[in-house]
C-alpha cells in the first residue's frame, strides 16, 4: 500500500468514515500521516483539554467540521462546579485563524459566550451548521448574530442549552434571502418567538426536514406550520394544550395526518394524554419517540390518565419500528403513584424488538423483568436504567439486581453504553468485565461492595473509554490497580468514593500524561482543609489523558496534581 501514489491513498481514506479508523491509519507511517491529515474533513475532540486548539488546526488545515466536548458528563447533574471550565472561545478563535473554511461546529457541555457566537458568525463564510448541546453562557443576542451573518446556514440545532432570553426578534434576523435551512431546533428557548417570522421562514425554506419548536409556540401556530411543511421528517411540537373535544384538536390531527414523512417526534409540552391519540396514526413510521416532556398526571380522577405502564403498552403495540425510547420521571422527588414500573419496560421490549437505545426512569425493577428484556431485545446499544430510589433491591425477591443487569450485558453483545442503578454488589461488575466487550461508557452510582468491583471493570472492558462513578465504595487500591488503563480511556470521574488524596498523588506521579484533577469545594473558613493530609478522602476527582499538561486557566478550586 505504501507504494501507491498519494492520490490513491487519499481516495482510499475517503471511505474511512469513523474518526477512530482515520486516527488509526494516521499512525501507520509518516506518509500516511501526511495524506490523512490533509484530507481529514471532520475532527472529533472528545475532551477539549486533551489537546490545544491551535495544534488541531495546524494538523488538519482542511477541516470542515469540528466537534468538541467540554465538561464531564456528571456536570449535567450539578456535580461539577459551575465555573470548572470548558470554554468554546479558544476553539473558535483558533479555527477562525487556522481553518476559515469551517462549515460545521458541534459543541457539547461547553461554555459559549455571545462573543464567541458573534466571532463564529463573522469568521466563516461557508458556515452551514451549528449544533450546541447542553451548553450555556449565551443569549438570544448570540443567536441573532448567527441568523444575521451566516448566509448559507442549513442547520441550527440547540439541544437543552441554558439560553438567556432577551426577546423574540432573533428569529426575524434570518434575512428573506435565507431559504437554505434544513433543520431548526430552538426547543430549549424559554421565551416567545415571532410567530409570523417563524411561519414565513418555514414557508420559504423548502428543504426544511427537521423543526423543533419551543414550548411558547401555540397549537394554532403548529397547525399553520404543519400545513406549510407537511414534508417534515423530524418534528418537536410546542405546547400542546388543546382539548380533545375542540375544533382545534381536529385540525391538529388532520395536520398530523398529512405529514407522511414523520419519523421522529418530540415536544408534547403540557399535553393531555388523550391528545397523544392524535400521534398514533403517525406511529407506524416512527423510529424515535421522545415523551420526556409529557406529564404523568397524578390524581384520583379517572379521567386524568397517566402515560404510565398503560401508555407504554399502547406505544409497544403501535410503534413497531421504535429504536429509541426515553421515559423521564415527572415526579422527580415524590413517591406519588408510580408512573412506570418494570411492567412498562417488559411491554416495550416485547412490542418493539428493534429497540436499541433506552433511557428509563422508574420506581422499581426486577431481575425477572430485566432477564426478559434482555431476551426480547438483544440489540441494545445504549441501556440506561435509573431506579429512582438509590440502592433499591428487586421488590419481589429482595435480591440485588446483579442477575438482571448480568443478563443484559450477556445478551446485548453490541452494548456500548450502560448506566446502572438499584442494589448491586461486586458481582454485577464481574459480569460486566466478562461480557461487555464493546462497552465504551459505564455509569455507576451507589453500587458495589469493594475495590474488586471497579477492578473487574478496569481489567475486563477492553473498549472502555469513559468511566464515571459516584457514591460507591471504591478506593485507592482500585484506582491504582491498572494505571495504564487510563491512557487508553478518555476520562475517569469518581466522586464520593473512598479514594484519598494520597492515592490521587500516586496516580499523578506514575502517569505524567494524565491530568489528575481534584475538585475541592471546601469551606474557606475550614482551616483544617488548607493542608489536607494524604489520608484525606477526595470528594471529586476527574482524570483524563492529555497532551497539554495541566491547564493554565483552571479555577482555584481545581488542583491538578
Amino acid at each position, binding site marked *: 500500500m505504501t507504494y501507491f501514489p498519494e492520490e490513491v491513498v487519499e481516495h482510499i481514506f475517503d471511505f474511512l468514515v469513523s474518526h477512530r479508523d482515520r486516527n488509526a491509519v494516521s499512525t501507520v507511517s509518516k506518509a500516511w500521516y501526511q495524506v490523512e491529515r490533509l484530507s481529514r474533513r471532520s475532527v472529533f475532540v472528545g475532551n477539549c483539554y486533551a489537546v490545544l486548539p491551535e495544534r488541531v488546526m495546524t494538523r488538519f488545515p482542511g477541516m470542515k467540521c469540528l466537534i468538541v466536548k467540554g465538561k464531564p458528563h456528571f456536570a449535567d447533574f450539578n456535580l461539577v462546579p459551575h465555573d470548572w471550565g470548558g470554554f468554546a472561545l479558544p476553539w473558535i478563535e483558533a479555527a477562525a485563524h487556522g481553518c476559515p473554511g469551517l462549515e460545521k461546529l458541534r459543541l457539547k457541555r461547553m461554555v459559549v459566550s455571545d462573543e464567541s457566537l458573534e466571532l463564529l458568525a463573522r469568521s466563516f463564510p461557508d458556515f452551514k451548521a451549528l449544533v450546541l448541546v447542553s451548553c450555556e453562557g449565551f443569549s438570544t443576542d448570540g443567536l441573532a448574530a448567527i441568523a444575521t451573518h451566516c448566509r448559507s446556514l442549513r442547520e441550527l440545532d440547540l439541544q437543552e442549552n441554558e439560553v438567556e432570553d432577551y426577546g423574540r426578534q432573533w428569529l426575524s434576523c434570518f434575512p428573506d434571502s435565507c431559504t437554505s435551512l434544513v433543520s431548526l431546533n430552538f426547543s430549549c428557548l424559554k421565551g416567545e418567538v415571532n410567530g409570523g417570522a417563524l411561519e414565513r421562514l418555514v414557508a420559504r425554506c423548502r428543504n426544511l426536514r427537521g423543526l423543533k419548536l419551543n414550548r411558547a409556540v401555540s397549537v394554532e401556530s403548529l397547525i399553520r406550520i404543519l400545513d406549510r411543511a407537511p414534508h417534515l421528517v423530524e418534528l418537536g411540537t410546542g405546547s400542546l394544550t388543546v382539548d380533545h373535544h375542540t375544533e382545534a384538536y381536529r385540525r391538529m390531527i388532520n395536520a398530523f395526518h398529512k405529514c407522511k414523512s414523520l419519523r421522529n417526534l418530540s415536544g408534547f409540552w403540557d399535553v393531555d394524554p388523550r391528545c397523544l391519540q392524535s400521534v398514533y396514526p403517525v406511529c407506524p413510521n416512527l423510529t424515535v419517540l421522545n415523551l420526556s*416532556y409529557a406529564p404523568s398526571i397524578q390524581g384520583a380522577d379517572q379521567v*386524568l390518565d397517566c402515560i404510565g405502564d398503560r401508555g407504554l403498552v399502547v406505544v409497544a403495540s403501535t410503534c413497531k419500528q421504535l429504536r429509541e425510547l426515553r421515559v423521564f420521571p415527572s415526579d422527580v422527588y415524590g413517591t406519588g403513584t408510580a408512573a412506570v414500573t418494570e411492567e412498562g419496560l417488559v411491554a416495550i421490549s416485547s412490542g418493539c424488538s428493534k429497540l436499541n437505545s433506552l433511557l428509563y426512569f422508574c420506581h422499581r425493577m426486577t431481575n425477572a423483568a430485566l432477564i426478559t428484556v434482555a431476551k426480547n431485545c438483544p440489540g441494545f446499544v445504549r441501556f440506561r436504567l435509573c431506579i429512582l430510589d438509590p440502592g433499591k433491591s428487586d*421488590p419481589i425477591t429482595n435480591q440485588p439486581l446483579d442477575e438482571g443487569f448480568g443478563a443484559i450485558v450477556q445478551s446485548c453483545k453490541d452494548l456500548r453504553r450502560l448506566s446502572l442503578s438499584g442494589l448491586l454488589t461486586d458481582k454485577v461488575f464481574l459480569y460486566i468485565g466478562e461480557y461487555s466487550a464493546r462497552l465504551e461508557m459505564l455509569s455507576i452510582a451507589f453500587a458495589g461492595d469493594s475495590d474488586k468491583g471497579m477492578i473487574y471493570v478496569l481489567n475486563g472492558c477492553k473498549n472502555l473509554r469513559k468511566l464515571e462513578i459516584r457514591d460507591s465504595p471504591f478506593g485507592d487500591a482500585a484506582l491504582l490497580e491498572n494505571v495504564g488503563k487510563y491512557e487508553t480511556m478518555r476520562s475517569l470521574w469518581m466522586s464520593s468514593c473512598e479514594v484519598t488524596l494520597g492515592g490521587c498523588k500516586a496516580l499523578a506521579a506514575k502517569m505524567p500524561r494524565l491530568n489528575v484533577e481534584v475538585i475541592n469545594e471546601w469551606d474557606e473558613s475550614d482551616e483544617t482543609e488548607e493542608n489536607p493530609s494524604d489520608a484525606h478522602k477526595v470528594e471529586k476527582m476527574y482524570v483524563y489523558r492529555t497532551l497539554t499538561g495541566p491547564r493554565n486557566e483552571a479555577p482555584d478550586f481545581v488542583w491538578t496534581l
Partner: protein
Amino acid sequence: MSTTETGNSSTTESAVSGLDYEETQLTLAPPGGSRSELERKRGFSEGVDLSLETKDFLSGSSDEPPKPQVVGWPPVRSFRRNVLKSCTYVKVAVDGTPYLRKVDLEAYAGYQQLLTALEEMFSCFTARTYPNVRRLVDPVNGTEYVPTYEDKDGDWMLIGDVPWKMFVASCKRLRLMKSSEFVDIGCITER
C-alpha cells in the same frame, strides 16, 4: 393564653355576629380558617422527622415518606427539572385592576397558602371564610371578590372544590371575580 393558638371558635358563631372572630384575635398564625393549626403542627413534625430520614434514605422502600434530596440524584438534567417545574406558573387577574400577576402554584402547599399569598400580593385584601365559599375583601370599599380559576377544559370553576394537587394540575389561570358578578347556585346564605 390565646395569643399563640388559633381560636377554635366555630364559624357559625362568627357568621351570626357578622365578624370573623378568628380574624380579630391576635395570633401568630396567618389569617384564615381553622386549618392553619393543623398545618403548623404538621410542619413541626416534618422538621423532626427529616433528620431521621437522612440516615435511612438508602434502605427505604417506596412506602416511606418523601426522602430528602441527594445532590445530583436522580440523574435528571437541571435543564429538564427546571422545565418540568415551571409549568405551574399561572396568571392572576383581579376584576378592576389593570395589571395581572403571576404565581407559581407549586410554591404553595394548599388553598390556604395560596389565598394568603393572593392577599399579600394585592395587599388591600383580607380573607374571609364563609361556610362554603372563600372570599377576599377589599376593606377600603367593601367589595368582595370570589377566587375562581379556569381549568384545562376552559371552564371557570370555584376554587376549593377539588383536592389541592388536582387543582394544581388543572388550573390554567386565576381570576378574582367580583362577588356581584358571581352567582353561586349552591351557596347557603352567608349572613
